[in-house]
């Protein structure tokens, strides 16, 4: 059972390695969106450090939604999704595997880029540490809920925009706790509460979304 999950993840990693272009565009999108904000808000470091958590988190949301619309679409287009659905393994593992693969490919790099952008927003060191931690706990939520949206909008025209419309409201708790963690460290309140709530939300989505995504896949492939 677990071997199928690992096989799906390894398959996606290999496919992403072969097609570095998509991966690069998503990371550059994240950097560019974040770098636009100082131009809009102004260079004042105090102001920037206050909005840094929110800006980085919203950019992470948008970057993951950008890459999620093709999570199942490519496999659906060339027929390999059907073959995987016909494999003698539960569909839940396929949905979970694809979501985790997406998290490894598109979620973790956000974590590595965030400190550089944190410095750009003159965040102090401990705030950058909490930002990375909140992204580490929060990005699985983005991939898991996003996989539900991707499965629901499989094969629809305008799927990408529709996916954002459907899933963005569901991202709100992750955004609030994630960005809140950074603000809490800045104001000295300590981010344990936010991070633990974010972790609780992540565990809940981990338990709920693979089943819903699997059901949505079966509905969409019909």
């Amino acid at each position, binding site marked *: 059972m677990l*071997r*199928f999950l690992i*096989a*799906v993840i390894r*398959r996606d990693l*290999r*496919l992403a390695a*072969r*097609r570095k272009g998509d991966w690069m565009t998503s990371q550059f999108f994240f950097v560019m969106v974040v770098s636009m904000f100082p131009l809009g808000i102004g260079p004042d470091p105090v102001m920037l450090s206050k909005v840094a958590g929110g800006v980085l988190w919203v950019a992470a949301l948008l970057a993951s939604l950008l890459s999620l619309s093709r999570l199942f679409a490519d496999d659906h*287009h*060339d*027929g*390999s999704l*059907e*073959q*995987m*659905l*016909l*494999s*003698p*393994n*539960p569909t839940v593992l396929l949905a979970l595997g694809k979501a985790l693969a997406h998290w490894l490919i598109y979620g973790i790099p956000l974590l590595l880029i965030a400190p550089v952008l944190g410095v750009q927003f003159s965040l102090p060191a401990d705030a950058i540490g909490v930002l990375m931690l909140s992204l580490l706990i929060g990005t699985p939520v983005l991939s898991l809920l996003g996989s539900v949206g991707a499965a629901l909008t499989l094969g629809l025209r305008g799927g990408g925009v529709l996916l954002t419309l459907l899933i963005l409201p569901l991202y709100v708790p992750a955004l609030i706790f994630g960005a809140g963690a950074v603000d809490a460290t800045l104001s000295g309140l300590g981010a344990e509460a936010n991070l633990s709530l974010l972790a609780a939300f992540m565990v809940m989505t981990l338990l709920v979304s693979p089943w819903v995504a699997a059901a949505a896949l079966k509905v969409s*492939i*019909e």
Partner: protein
Amino acid sequence: MPDTAAVLTVHDLACARGERTLFSDMNFQLCQGELLLVQGGNGRGKTSLLRLLTGLSHPLAGEIRWRGEALADNREQYHREMAYLGHLNGIKDELTPVENLRLAAELSRIPLSEQEAERALSDIGLARCLDLPARVLSFGQRRRVALASLVTAGALLWILDEPLTGLDIHGVALIEGLLRDHVSRGGMVVMTTHQALSLDGVRIVPLQVGPVLTKIEEEIECCAS
């Protein structure tokens, strides 16, 4: 001698696309060593019937049984013994044919070594292009990669949706050989095709979906419906 018990049975099956009922009260069964040839005009529901048999879509009414059990109950076992080749090849363009084969085998829990994959591909006439990304292959060659993956899957029941499209004469002859071997070894096939097939020595069970049409009527009829 393959036993003659019916392995795949269908009870008054009905299928609809959107709000239109394509066919209803369809009954047939298939034993080992038989080939079910599904015939009918375009848009009559041949592909829909095959997708129902794979379990990907659900019928409006009726039931499909595999070894006496409904599909929904023994889905995993059924999918282990069934392989499906639809209009799409299920091949990833970035991977080479060998990688595609080994990946498909790994996902359906079948051990397949590098050599076995290469032998399967060269048997099917793709010896020259083993390490090229599938993207550069022609449609016919990609079809053969899908057929190679069908053979290596070693499934009892093959469900093929117009497998001959896009293949040259050698390809067609190759498939006829594959079908003959598979059925003679006790395998089962459900397939649709518009081209004539010379499958002597294979027990063929014809199944008509929709009204029987002569050549000329076929074009007019399907546009009016």
